[in-house]
């Protein structure tokens, strides 16, 4: 069973992401919800995690800082990170990919976009 962290300060956004995961066949994944980057980072360090889905604009620790911490961690460096944000454009996307994000999706996220982004992950 896959273990996935969803980091977003919005309950609504987390619910939409969970629905997308269910629709694309990841309904049995264990979902860990975090309201900001710091909480997500703590959860990722505390247990084995297969995937991190994160927003950018969050209180306490934003998504960009979270990616930097994850990629700098010897334990978490290989963890796939997908950004789901309303604040994305091509310039921002390039910057996030440079930081180590696997993909960047724009809100409102759709099941086909999620399916496409997670294709490699689903094949494993």
């Amino acid at each position, binding site marked *: 069973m896959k273990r996935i962290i969803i980091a977003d300060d*919005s309950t*609504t956004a987390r*619910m939409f992401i969970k629905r997308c995961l269910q629709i694309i066949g990841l309904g049995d994944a264990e979902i860990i919800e975090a309201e900001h980057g710091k909480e997500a980072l703590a959860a990722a360090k505390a247990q084995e995690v297969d995937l991190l889905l994160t927003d950018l604009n969050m209180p306490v620790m934003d998504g960009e800082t979270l990616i930097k911490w994850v990629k700098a961690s010897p334990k978490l460096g290989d963890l796939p990170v997908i950004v789901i944000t309303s*604040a994305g*454009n091509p310039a921002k996307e390039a*910057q996030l990919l440079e930081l180590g994000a696997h993909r960047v999706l*724009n*809100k*409102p996220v759709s099941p086909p976009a999620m399916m496409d982004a997670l294709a490699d992950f689903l094949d494993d």
Partner: protein
Amino acid sequence: MIEHKPLYQAMITAVSQTLENMVFMEVMEHFDRSYDIPEEDLVWTSLLINDPVQGEIRLAMPGTLLKKLTGNVFGIDEGDITQPQMDDILNELLNTIVGLFMTNLLADNQEYKMGLPELGDGPLPEIDAIQLSGN
């Protein structure tokens, strides 16, 4: 005509995309500019744009409509809806609208920074007409 102005078009597109995809609701423009949401039913939230220009975008709607949207999105009866759920949906709608608006408006290589949505209380504050620009 206002319909041809880039700010207006970017906002119409952002609102349509957001409401159609998040709450499965078709958007139609209300051309009667004298229409106001009754104050006792008004809910609103606001978000600051910090870069490349400074501004504020607000989303206001009738509380009765927000309750209906919340029930549809969460798939629950109106009697089971909580205030935090309604607040969260209102904030997330604005967050998504503003992100799409800025993406629609700016060039691909133009970065922007936006704040976090903050719920408003009471009537909508007056807009400072002196600071209005670009419209």
